[in-house]
């Protein structure tokens, strides 16, 4: 098998107002079957996708925020969230839901999937990919 490619899914849009966030997540879940080196980037309004306490009861739209917590099962364990984007929006890392995965290589220890990175670290992550898919 050829070496895995590095795939980055870039999420810059808020959930619900448009379908991009949900359909991005659908790509990630399906893409996970291809055993590539997958990372997710959340910046600008994309950071709103990961906030806690989303409740869509009154808008009649499916709440897909719990699905992010299943990503570990799909071996998608690198969710990079940009610190500056959070701060600009009055958010702190504690406003995001906890997303964990069990590390197979470390006796199934539970580890956080979300990594808060600076804007310049985010730029480094973006510059280190083979395929960048934007949503």
């Amino acid at each position, binding site marked *: 098998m050829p070496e895995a490619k590095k795939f980055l899914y870039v999420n810059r849009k808020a959930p619900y107002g448009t379908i991009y966030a949900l359909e991005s997540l659908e790509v990630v879940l399906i893409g996970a079957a291809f055993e590539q080196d997958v990372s997710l980037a959340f910046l600008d309004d994309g950071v709103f996708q990961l906030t806690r306490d989303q409740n869509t009861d009154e808008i009649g739209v499916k709440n897909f925020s719990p699905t992010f917590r299943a990503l570990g099962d*799909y071996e998608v364990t690198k969710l990079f969230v940009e610190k500056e984007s959070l701060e600009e929006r009055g958010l702190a890392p504690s406003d995001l839901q906890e997303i964990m995965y069990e590390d197979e290589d470390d006796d199934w220890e539970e580890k956080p999937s979300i990594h808060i990175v600076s804007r310049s670290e985010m730029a480094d992550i973006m510059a280190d990919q083979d395929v960048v898919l934007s949503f």
Partner: protein
Amino acid sequence: MSYQVNGTAIEADEDGYIVNLDEWSKDLAEEIAKAEGLPMTDDHWKVIDFLRNYYDEFQIAPAVRVLVKNAKKKLGPDIGNNKTLEAMFPDGAAKQGCKIAGLPKPTGCV
């Protein structure tokens, strides 16, 4: 098509997935399984319960490999392996399991 449960007709699509997910019940699951030609053993129920819990928690039905991995952890290796799950759900553990569990039809995206 539709299923008859305790005198009520439950609407389903062409493939036998129920249309209104709120109408699911254990009796309905038995009916769907019967239509699929499957006996609902205790082990089948364990898998169905697992699928429904997974959906409740994460709002998706797990992909087959995720189902197998989690079933192994939660239900033990006797059920949680490819061979057993395939034998229990000959039409595919995710596909047929979701149908009986009253979960959305996998869109078959791969």
